[in-house]
């Protein structure tokens, strides 16, 4: 490695060693502190990385800051675009000198001047690219280096002028490139022609279009809002706010009953028509059947089989339960048996009076109860009427009911 290369390496190693301090200085001024910090500041000051700003206050070398800014696309407010006219004048002088040397001069000087011209032309291209990068960064972030919109507007105005000048510079560069290329052809220096054509001429068109595009954005982007209808302008403003305040979701705004109904977005009320299955109109019924036929077949799920426990016989000491017959029921059973055995009629009252256990049962109740039970058993009942039977009686009074088995039983 050459001696210069080693120096560059050492310089970068020093920067790397004190990288924290360099980073701090990129954000603002740095001041002394403990011994270690003071030593670091002294070392960086010795290398020209830090420049004195005030008493015990240092700032980053502006050239180094520029390098970092460009790398991080971080530009301070109202940062001017680089002017290429100065470098272009320098290149023009170098080109004139080169032509003079071509006629009468040493080859070594020619080579040195050619390298200088090459450097100037590369520098011009680099400056233009730098300006475009910076413009793109500023415009795409809508001048994100300032928060206040008024400052943004002022920056926009400032860059509108800067870009106007920049475009003129690039057009001059284009003219310089074309003229130099012609002169190089005339002077028999094709390498210079190649240099300017390749480094400048071929790229001028792209640069010009990019600048014009930036110019258009600058002219319109924020200021178009002034010509827009109020509501579209409002839309634009809220869009800008959303872009710039990415961590905020919305606002807690007081709303009361007087708020416009247009703020209430209607919520969908789902409609689900239910067919009337009881409607027997043929059209309705057919449609219903048709709709039902399209339904997927019912998947019958077998009910889970219940696991029955093993059967077992449990022997208990509980007594078997026998039905206990009431006296009335007992008397009725016996009456049924008796009437079936005998062909004679049996008086219900007589049967009751013969049984002392039915003494508590009133005669009327017994007659009603027994007659209904016996009628259901298929026996024939007849009423013992009082007095002479009226041919057209509606209600006939009776005093007893007689029971006898039916005729077919007798036969």
């Amino acid at each position, binding site marked *: 490695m050459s001696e210069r290369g080693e120096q560059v390496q050492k310089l970068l190693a020093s920067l790397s060693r004190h990288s924290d301090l360099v980073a701090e200085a990129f954000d603002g001024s740095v001041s002394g502190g403990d011994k270690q910090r003071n030593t670091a500041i002294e070392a960086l000051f010795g290398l020209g990385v830090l420049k004195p700003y005030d008493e015990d206050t240092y700032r980053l070398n502006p050239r180094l800051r520029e390098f970092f800014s460009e790398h991080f696309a971080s530009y301070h407010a109202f940062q001017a675009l680089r002017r290429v006219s100065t470098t272009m004048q320098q290149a023009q002088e170098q080109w004139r000198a080169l032509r003079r040397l071509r006629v009468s001069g040493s080859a070594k000087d020619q080579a040195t001047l050619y390298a200088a011209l090459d450097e100037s032309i590369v520098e011009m291209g680099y400056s233009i690219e730098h300006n475009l990068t910076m413009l*793109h960064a500023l415009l*795409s972030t809508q001048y994100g280096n300032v*928060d*206040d*919109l*008024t400052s943004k*507007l*002022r920056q*926009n*105005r400032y860059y509108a*002028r*800067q870009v*106007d000048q920049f475009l003129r510079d690039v057009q001059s560069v284009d003219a310089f490139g074309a003229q130099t290329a012609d002169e190089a052809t005339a002077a028999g220096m094709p390498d210079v022609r190649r240099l300017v054509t390749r480094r400048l001429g071929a790229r001028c068109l792209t640069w010009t279009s*990019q600048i014009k*595009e*930036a110019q258009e*954005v600058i*002219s*319109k*982007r*924020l*200021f178009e*809002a*002034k*010509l*827009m*209808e109020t*509501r*579209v302008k*409002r*839309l*634009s*403003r*809220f*869009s*800008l706010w*959303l872009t710039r305040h990415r961590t*905020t*979701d*919305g*606002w*807690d*705004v*007081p*709303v*009361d*009953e*007087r*708020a*416009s*109904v*247009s*703020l*209430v*977005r*209607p*919520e*969908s*009320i789902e*409609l689900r028509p239910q067919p009337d299955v009881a409607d027997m109109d043929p059209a309705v019924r057919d449609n219903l059947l048709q709709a039902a036929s399209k339904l997927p077949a019912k998947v019958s799920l077998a009910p889970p089989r219940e696991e029955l426990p093993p059967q077992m016989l449990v022997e208990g000491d509980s007594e078997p339960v026998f039905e206990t017959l009431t006296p009335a029921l007992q008397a009725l059973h016996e009456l049924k048996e008796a009437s079936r055995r005998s062909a004679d009629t049996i008086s219900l009252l007589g049967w009751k009076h013969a049984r002392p256990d039915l003494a508590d049962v009133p005669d009327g109740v017994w007659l009603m109860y027994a007659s209904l039970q016996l009628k259901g058993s298929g026996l024939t009942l007849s009423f013992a009427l009082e007095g002479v039977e009226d041919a057209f009686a509606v209600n006939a009074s009776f005093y007893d009911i007689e029971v006898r088995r039916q005729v077919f039983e007798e036969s």
Partner: protein
Amino acid sequence: MNARVLKLLLEGAYICQYRYRDEFAMLEDEEEQVEVDAWLEKLDKRLARLGESGAFFMAPSFVGQRDIAQIKGELLKFRDEYGPAVLQLDFIRQTDAGGIMLSPGEYIPLFQLEAAVSHSTMLEAQLKALQGVVSGASQRQTNHENLRRLMEHLAKDGYVTLANKDSGVYQVTGKIEQLYSVLQFLDENKVIPDAEIDDRESDEAQIDLLEPGALPSTDAEDAT
């Protein structure tokens, strides 16, 4: 009373002459309005319009506590509720600032959006930045596809409708006025600080900036 009109109203649609031409024409009839209103009244709702002659929609009979809570909730989540539409519509506006006013009934041809994006690296970068708010948009897709998805997203949300499928022309619907009324309400409540309001520049500055040819030759004012 038309069943389709009622169904749309119950679905929460904004019935404008661009998206629902026939239904809008029916609702223009005053008798129909009275009938629909009476029908909606049973649901504690009423027929309302955006502005004097805007889209019809189903509004609450009166703004109650539930509605207030709904509005407040939506404004608290403005970025999610209205943010995508604001960003997407503002992007469309920027593609042709002079021409597109985003008014109901305005046509937006997809090919014009595509042409604007292809001619501007700024717009292209902006379109890419919108991927987070456009459903289905992706870095891998072409500008055309991303723009189509943007318009489809807006159409799904009801702000535009596909007027001509063959030529890919969309039309702004009446629903956009609802968004404007929300923004107006927010503006009246000054949710964006005054420092960020761009209405304070003098008219002189406007002329100065809008006409690059009229720019003064010196920039001494700003340079200082």
